[in-house]
């Protein structure tokens, strides 16, 4: 187990180094950093001096090592458009994205499991067939189209929910104000969260359905029926418990993709999170923000994958001793 952890850690480290290299190349070669910092009247000598003071005249390898050092000490530079440290900008936007992602994940988990169980228990019912058909459409359509459809129905036609932005904020700490404490906050969170969670919900629903159908055919369920246990107990105690192991793995891995897809959802609803910031930085070629976001996302994914892998190994004894990760 320890060997596995060490190897997995080393792998993650290599991936992060490669991503850092890409970020460094972007940082260094997308436009001249000196030109971004100085005005028109700066003389060539002054530019050269600045270049030397920034260490830009050093060999590339030295620059890269120094870049890695800066990244490791969480110094990501200053945004070109906002003239403020990138770290500060991202920290400001983090609560919005995390709230959206967590609510979407919970929403998709709860409704996905409930609907999946329902479909497995009534496999031939009309509602199950309808749910299956809707989930097929939901998986096929692009996220932003679903978001626009929801805006049209609930904001424009019915006028029930706000169509964009984050509101009803209550400050919790200096950097963290939450919208989860007011009705207004929940109202503006609902549409983005549903849009973001819909895809995951259909995925979980299908997974739970097929896993549960399989478990219901197992011998221990038959034995339970033969013993005369109440149905509710068989279904929700014994069957559901055995269904959830693979579901947890998939949900863990999907957490990363929720964060990735939040870029799209945040744009549709103009939700002021990190994804929207990243997108604006792509449009304006704000390299410091872009490269930092790249590093941040890569870090999240590497961590999530590693933890899920190790958990899986710890939970499933059949995988023990196998050398492949």
């Amino acid at each position, binding site marked *: 187990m320890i060997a596995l952890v060490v190897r997995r850690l080393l792998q993650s480290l290599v*991936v992060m180094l490669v991503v850092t290299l890409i970020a460094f190349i972007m940082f260094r070669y*997308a436009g001249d950093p000196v030109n971004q910092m100085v005005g028109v009247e700066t003389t060539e000598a002054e530019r050269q001096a600045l270049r030397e003071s920034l260490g830009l005249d050093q060999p590339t390898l030295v620059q890269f090592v120094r870049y890695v050092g800066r990244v490791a000490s969480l110094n990501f530079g200053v945004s070109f458009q906002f003239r403020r440290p990138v770290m500060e900008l991202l920290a400001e936007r983090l609560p919005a994205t995390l709230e959206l992602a967590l609510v979407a994940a919970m929403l998709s988990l709860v409704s996905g499991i409930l609907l999946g169980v329902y479909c497995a228990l009534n496999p031939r019912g009309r509602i199950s067939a309808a749910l299956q058909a809707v989930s097929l459409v939901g998986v096929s*359509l*692009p996220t932003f189209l679903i978001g626009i459809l929801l805006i049209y129905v609930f904001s424009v036609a019915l006028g029930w929910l706000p169509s964009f932005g984050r509101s009803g904020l209550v400050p919790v700490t200096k950097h963290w104000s939450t919208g989860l404490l007011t009705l207004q906050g929940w109202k503006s969170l609902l549409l983005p969260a549903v849009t973001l969670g819909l895809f995951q919900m259909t995925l979980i629903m299908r997974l739970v359905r097929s896993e549960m159908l399989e478990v219901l055919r197992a011998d221990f369920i038959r034995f339970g029926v033969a013993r005369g246990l109440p149905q509710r107990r068989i279904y929700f105690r014994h069957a559901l418990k055995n269904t959830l192991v693979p579901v947890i793995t998939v949900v863990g891995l999907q957490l990363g993709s929720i964060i990735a897809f939040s*870029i799209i959802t945040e744009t549709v609803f103009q939700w002021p999170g990190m994804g929207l910031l990243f*997108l604006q930085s792509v449009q304006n070629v704000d390299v410091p923000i*872009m490269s930092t976001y790249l590093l941040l996302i890569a870090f999240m994914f590497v961590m999530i994958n590693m933890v899920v892998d190790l958990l899986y190994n710890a939970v499933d004894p059949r995988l023990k001793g196998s050398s492949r990760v």
Partner: protein
Amino acid sequence: MTRTTNEAEAHGRSVWAGVWQSDLCIDFRANRLVLVATLLLAILLTASLLAPWVAPTDPFDAMSLDVMHSNLPPAWQQGGSTEFLLGTDDQGRDMLSAVLYGLRTSIVISALGVLLAAAIGISLGIVAGYFGGFVDTLIMRTADVQLSFPAILIALLVDGILHSMLPALKRDDSAAMVIVISIGLSFWVQYARTVRSSTMVEKKKDYVSAARLFALPSRTIMVRHILPNVMSPVLVILTINFGLAIITEATLSYLGVGLPPMRPSLGTLIRIGQEYLFSGEWWIVAFPGFALAILVLTLNLLGDWLRDALNPKLR
């Protein structure tokens, strides 16, 4: 050597012919849903590829635009005109023509992207499978890492990196190329994995040993001998990936980092149209959205069906 090639070709042909005459065709005729999907898809494809001849107006010819005709609703609504069947946008552009041209752009760009992805994936897959060793480890590890990120994220990042590398003035002109490369770099993994595993099976067969005995260069063996024998699963992946590529292109364009408003794809049209949703001009966003939805749905239906019908192993 030529005989082996011919045999391989004959083998390939007989497989295709056999499939075509038997299950595939019967299954196709029996499946109403797939039939309808194919019909719809065929209509969309033909109409969009023939857009310059079918569309009532050229939406990008600024001379033909008339502000007097701006924001007209579709023909069946009050205030609509039969001259503009699906209405017009704020500049008096005919929506029907805009959608047809947008479809065309979306389809062409996505197809190029998928072909690029296939080309990258197939070549890396054959090389990895044929040589093995360090090259194999390097390529497949990269593939593993990339597979743990969602494709849309990779596409966005590649798009962003390419954007930052280009000088500001060239960005609009090279937007199409940037998207094609983004799609190519985000979808190659599946091809590489499939082709690598079939290459590892094929390279142990007698015809490859024979070719090696002739001391043929590795390149010739890979391209002329192995490649034709590992292509059939690739075709299935191509169909399924086409739908995903369309979604990716539409998403990038919707996010405003794809095709510019001057040469809009469906995604760009939807982004522009969303602004008019609140003032009641629903048709500016609805028709491009509808076209995109139908295109993706029919492609998915067709791809799923083809996968199940052609290759039960992939199920």
